């Protein structure tokens, strides 16, 4: 039997941490792009699109991420598409993230006073110009803090990708725990790694929020 030193544990977890970070970034960038697209569709198009996107949001917010991961992994292969754990995890996390972001951002757009739309409209700006030059810059300022706050949820959400065999921090922790027979020590270290990742992001969100309030009051 191989003896695991604390250094071995930390080194292996740190290596696996890279994939947690990578998966978080993919989820956040992909989710941001899809969410942004859905937001524009939601604002720009009619009631039908709104309902459709509302259903999309309800679906992804109303089911566990774990199940979404299973569905992406096993569902796609059932359809004849062979997907790797990478693809399935990226896909599920992107869709999950986009569903939350579109809701957060919609709230921010709605928080921009109606008078701003009216002023832009009465200056003969087109809908796209109103959105781009008047509404979105103001909504973006409101959105920074809650968006960064949600990033923490995404980072922790990547832990669930371990169930489809994606070797990130949690999965690596499980494997090392099994091999080393030191589950408490290993998972304690895993928790510390997550904390080291999430805590600065939380702090940043709080800082941004304070800055926001300072500006508006």
């Amino acid at each position: 039997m191989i003896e695991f030193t604390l250094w071995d544990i930390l080194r292996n977890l740190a290596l696996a941490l890279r994939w947690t970070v990578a998966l978080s970034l993919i989820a956040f960038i992909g989710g941001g792009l899809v969410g942004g697209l859905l937001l524009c569709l939601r604002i720009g198009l009619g009631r039908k699109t709104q309902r459709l996107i509302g259903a999309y949001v309800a679906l992804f917010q109303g089911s566990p991420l774990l199940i979404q991961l299973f569905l992406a992994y096993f569902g796609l292969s059932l359809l004849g598409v062979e997907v790797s754990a990478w693809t399935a995890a990226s896909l599920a996390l992107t869709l999950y993230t986009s569903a939350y972001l579109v809701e957060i951002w919609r709230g921010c757009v709605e928080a921009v006073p109606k008078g701003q739309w009216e002023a832009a409209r009465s200056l003969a700006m087109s809908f796209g110009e109103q959105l781009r030059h008047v509404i979105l810059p103001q909504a973006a300022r409101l959105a920074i803090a809650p968006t960064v706050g949600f990033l923490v949820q995404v980072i922790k959400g990547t832990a669930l990708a371990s169930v489809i065999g994606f070797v990130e921090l949690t999965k690596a922790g499980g494997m090392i725990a099994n091999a080393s027979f030191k589950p408490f020590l290993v998972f304690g270290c895993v928790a510390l790694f997550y904390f080291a990742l999430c805590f600065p992001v939380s702090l940043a969100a709080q800082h941004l929020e304070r800055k926001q309030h300072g500006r508006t009051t």
Partner: protein
Amino acid sequence: MAAPPDDAVDHMIDHVIEPVAAPALPVPGVPIVRITALRKSYGTNEVLKGIDLDVMRGEVIALIGKSGSGKSTLLRCINGLEQFQDGSLRVADKPLLHDSAMAMRALRQQVGMIFQSFNLFPHLSVGRNVMLAPTLVKKRSDRDAADQARALLARVGLAEKFDAMPDQLSGGQQQRVAIARALAMEPQVLLCDEITSALDPELVGEVLRVVESLAEEGMTLLMVTHEMNFARKVADRVIFMHQGRVHEIGPPAEVFGAPKTPELRQFLKSLDD
């Protein structure tokens, strides 16, 4: 009820021949705003019950009346912020067509609006507030728009505020920026929706002086106002609205001096209390 389609065909032809964005040529004797049998309701609640009104170029019209009488709604119909269900509205002899984005864009270049709550864009500097629409809609170069913005800000007495942010200004200053911003689109008609109602009393004067100077320069103005002294002094005609109708209309001396209807007498009396 509905306007008869007397000259609908003529106007369709007009529409085809003239580019929509062409500046309206001043035609003497033709009203700049022509409102015919205009009706507007929110659900089952009819707020405008058949409004007929011709506004001549250069005319200053004050709309007075109790809150809920439909005066703001009427104003907001003129630049399409509110849709009406029946009747017709023409600005510079072009019909207002809600469904045509092109037509609405052309119309809104003719009709400027100033709001009770200023509605300056808080993320842009004062200068940028004024420049934004001309650069986007009129495709003006940044330099031309900046020159124009400086000139307009000087006109409203805020030349030195070009680089200030809106939240650094007093309410009266913000409203004057809003006036400059509306003027930057070189509108034919300016709509003022209770533009001094959100101001502290000591700031009302500076805004009204700017509006008065616009009136003297021949700008067509329609304003919803509670400043009766100002209406008396500046308006060519005063409209008293009551329950969604033009209840009484006439020169200020007549409307304020010799009100014909008991509703107007009652309204004027309530102001003195």
